[in-house]
């Protein structure tokens, strides 16, 4: 699954790192490092983490089926 965190909103509350420790890790006291493509097996944990974010900075992919880009024809 795909996620992105708006780190300019993130204030380092670490709620995500409690609830989905495999996908979200604190680097020091406040800085968040995360896996933008966590394993689908972690989906429940990641959804819990996203819901718990006090500043709602975690965006989870909303698409079931992706709008996969057709690769441009290489002349």
């Amino acid at each position: 699954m795909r996620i992105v965190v708006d780190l300019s909103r993130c204030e380092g509350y670490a709620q995500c790192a409690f609830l989905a420790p495999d996908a979200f890790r604190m680097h020091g006291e406040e800085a968040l490092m995360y896996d933008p493509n966590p394993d689908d097996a972690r989906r429940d944990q990641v959804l819990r983490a996203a819901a718990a974010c006090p500043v709602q900075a975690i965006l989870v992919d909303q698409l079931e089926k992706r709008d996969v880009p057709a690769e441009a024809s290489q002349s």
Partner: protein
Amino acid sequence: MATTKTPDTLRRILDYSSRADPYPLYAELRETPVALQEDGSYVISTYRELTDILHNPHLSSDVRNLSHPVEAFERSGTPSFINLDPPEHDRLRRMAMRHFGPPHTPELVAGLEPDLTATVGSLIDGFAGKEQIDIVDDFAYPFPVTVICHLLGVPREDEPRFHLWVNAIIDSIDYNPKTDPKERLTNGRQATTDLREYLGGLVEQRHGRPGDDLLSRLANDDGPDGRMTDDEIVATANLLLIAGHETTVNLITNGMLTLLRHPQVLQRLGDEPGLVVPLVEELLRYEPPVHIIPWRASYSDITIADTVIPKGSRIMLMLASGSRDPNRFHDPDRFDPDRRDNQHLGFGSGIHLCFGGPLARRETQIALNELVRRLDRPRLVADPPPYRRSPVLRGPIHLHIEQGDG
């Protein structure tokens, strides 16, 4: 002008008769976002002003910064980090967090899941053969108490002792010398002393005996910030013991009550257990366990919503009102588990954001999922149910339900 048009709104909110439904009064309060009270204190009730002030470094949690001391808030012993400002707050919270969450102990809450599920399962097993169940006494109280005792390393069999102390302490949080009997305050004081003495005894036993529980870890760990003094450990344990169950009991009970009042959502949750995740967030907005932060102090003059709150003023934060502010939440009085952008104030905001929030969420998510899965056609016996006295930590004192053909 900050003076409220309806000077007795706050009094009516605090009055027990409004406990079942304070929300219309919160709406009245929000007409004056920053309302000066007759006693010189300020009440803040709108979302934006609440989030602003919770991020304002001039807002103090240290009672010594109140220019007119309030008896009920006076310090008795070493304060815990909830009643301290940076840098002391940050240091003590960091030291406690080392043993509870990231970055040092990131796996703890996620790792508790099997224990939480087992505890919930055995409590629900205990419903067997009962015609009526009290969601509070039979479930929502014992569950988080078991969890916090286990985490802290407080013997579960001592619960009857500290239950009384904790009740007396909660009862004194909002003590009002004008209307309340003096015993409420003195009982609360005595209970604080007794509880601290009890916890102090436990801490003493832990020295030199490394163990997995929080008390042992705090008593024996030398992290980058050094070691907490015994008084600091007692203050921290005291806070976590009280907050660890007095709030979650309300969240779970309010959750069951809200589900029983919204049968379609109840039905949906049964079919779709994953719904519990956004549903608990909506509960934290719609029926939060903590309604009010009874006091904070302005460390220096604070300008908010064009009002200057003078240095030393008492400020009361109406969190539950902010989460119902129509200027922030569309259709705020509707319980909508699909709500987007749900940046509620259920756990506060800023540096004092609830320490145990992730645990409370998991406890409530697991509890509601299992209750809904295993109860057979649950029904409310009385609506509204009887409420606890406190307007601060608000929730039913009992929640009787019937199930099956009973």
